[in-house]
């Protein structure tokens, strides 16, 4: 069953064919539209542009910003940069994994949360940091995170 509306990327394909630009750029645009890179979209790109699927998937799997599965409703991201690491980021990851019963990188069974880690958000001074749907929570403790997650609707 496919619920991916491929008409959403028609304009991207037209722009790519006429204006040039790279495949990585195209995949980034696709990822922006769907919040992930759907298989259907990759197949469509492959057909339309005559680019082998393997080439597209080599890019989509090499670069970590591409997700191949749909994300949950809320995106929780723990910064695991060095500054955050020495200030307790690993405990935050463990807390989320324990509370939500998923591994980092995964999505909860009900599709409510996706938990990711990122190498550095560059806001080291207020570490450890967690972002929830793009909002920054600095100097956070496991306990505060645990309570915060419970409040997310």
């Amino acid at each position: 069953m496919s619920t991916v509306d491929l008409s959403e990327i028609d304009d991207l394909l037209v722009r790519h064919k006429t204006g040039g630009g790279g495949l990585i750029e195209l995949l980034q645009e696709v990822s922006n539209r769907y919040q992930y890179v759907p298989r259907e979209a990759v197949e469509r790109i492959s057909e339309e542009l005559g680019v082998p699927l393997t080439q597209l998937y080599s890019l989509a799997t090499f670069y970590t910003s591409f997700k191949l599965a749909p994300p949950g409703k809320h995106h929780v991201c723990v910064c695991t940069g060095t500054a955050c690491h020495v200030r307790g980021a690993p405990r935050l990851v463990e807390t989320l994994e324990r509370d939500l019963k998923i591994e980092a990188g995964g999505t909860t069974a009900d599709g409510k949360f996706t938990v990711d880690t990122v190498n550095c958000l560059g806001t080291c001074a207020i570490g450890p940091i967690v972002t929830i749907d793009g909002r920054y929570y600095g100097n956070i403790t496991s306990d505060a995170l645990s309570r915060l997650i419970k409040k997310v609707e």
Partner: protein
Amino acid sequence: MSCCSEQTGDAAAVASPATGEGPQRFDTPEALAAYVERLRAGHDEGLLTVLVSGGTCGLAAGAREVFDALRDQFAEQDLAGRAVLKLTGCHGFCAQEVLVVVRRGGRETLYCHVKPKDVAELVAAGVAAEGPLERLLYRPPEDSQVRVAEKGQVPFYAKQQRRLLMNNNRIDPLNFDDYLLQGGYLALAKALETEPEELIGWIKQSGLRGRGGAGFPTGIKWELTRRNVESAFDGQEEDGHCYVVCNADEGDPGAFMDRSILEGNPHALIEGMAIGAWAVSGDTSAACRGYVYVRNEYPLAIEHLQTALAQARAANLLGEDILGSGFSFDIRIVRGAGAFVCGEETALIESIEDRVGEPRIKPPFPVARGLWGMPTTLNNVKSWASAVMVVDRGPEYFASVGTESSKGTMVFSLVGKVANTGLIEVPMGMTLGEIIEGIGGGTQSGKPIKAVQTGGPSGGCIPATMLDIGVDYESLTKAGTIMGSGGMIVMDETTCMVDTAKYFVHVGMEESCGKCAPCRDGLQHMHHLLDEITEGRGRAEDIDLLERIGKHIRELSFCGLGKTAPNPVLSTIRYFREEYEAHIEKKQCPAGVCKALVVYRIDAEKCNGCHLCFKRCPVDAIRGEVKGPHEINEVECIKCGMCYEACKFDAVRII
């Protein structure tokens, strides 16, 4: 990676509020200089100015809300005309965000931890009246009674020399006139009237070395590129190309210097790249194009850079026939897609060329055959911005601080367990001790410093006994680490060096592109051994084995990532061997970090039975009644640390 939708010139061409003139397009260097003069004539340096530090960390701390509240107050108090309000780039003192600076007649008063609810009082007492508002002034941690009003006297700022970061404190990055008022693009105008060889001579004379990590002399890099451009396209009918590229793929975990410059002073990068483009390709038949490869995790930096590019194009400072010189140059933004290895120059080039970021073999170096096989100069954000300073103020000014071999200043992100976390700029050669104690204020916890780490996953840890070494390229290399791009992470006794080494090897392992076996397999092997050690299964021979594998990876890897990835392990073994031995022989983690080697206990004498730990424990491993003694069941305990964090009486001990 994406060349973002770039605004057309018209959208960016806004009338100048400062001079009341229409949009400016400079057809000659004189027109630019005259406009800057008019801006300066109309500018009152003594005018009351309120600056809000608005980098990503400032915004995360609520700078936008403070700014909005200030704007409302300005309207309410009818301050327009009498005072100016600006949202600037990052002022660097992240530990005290949100920062507000009130400048009055050249004196700057620093307000810390400002919240929207403080704004009405701040405006009344500190802006409308002479001030200062005592309550929000900086408070040194050692004496809570003292307040420091003058920004320059706050220890964090007093010992710095903010040259590259100066504009971050002064200008609204989205306001083009603000940059021009500081003499912006006059260096480009000067460069375009200078012979490229002479320009390169200035850069060489300044002693500027690559600020991205390796420290290659920038002037020589430019010169080599130019020679290659000249020999490649000499006498050819068809036009050739060459490239200048900015590496803004700031991947080092624990570093945010480049982001801060992109956010707070984007025109400096554009101007620097345009100067570089003229230096490598001016007066040749080759056309030069620019690329900025920037991390996708830096949305605000990308936004500000896009705006700045559009402004520069509209003003004829980018594009065709810049300032009527006949020289043409433009810049495209390419967004990274999340691969640390793309910070390596040839991997970055591969990525711009739409391939996976696997490095190329060198030579040929990018200066000979880089992007699309053409001569390419690739520099870090700070290097490009430094070139502007060299041209603007002269090589002597640039080289007036620093050491014999490392000239100028260096920007560091001072983070980790340090009290005054933030972004700092100091002359090369300042000792680590002066930086960490003098500017950083020692550790946050008050515990002794154990080590400092520089250079990210490519660097090493320097023990506290060596804090008297000065920061320059050679001294740091001798100590077993590297300058890197400027991350400086302070560690105290609660940081485990084995765990730290494991952390960095994990980063290297995850980010290895997998092209060569020493890096791909070697780092996995090292990580496995470190994992065993931290889990209490280490063997006595593992330390030597780690050293052997590390040296192999260092010698045999294809690119810089692998060549440097063992550094964190090798340097921690060199300086903290006894900590490895404690893990292996005594099955102890002296820092209390490695979970498998510690137990959590409650100190009966300190516990007052507040019952908070009991409530927080996620696995019900704590027994005890309110006001009674509490105890942790060590079998059930999962060592999550919740009770340790919750206890307000330091009764929970990690042993």
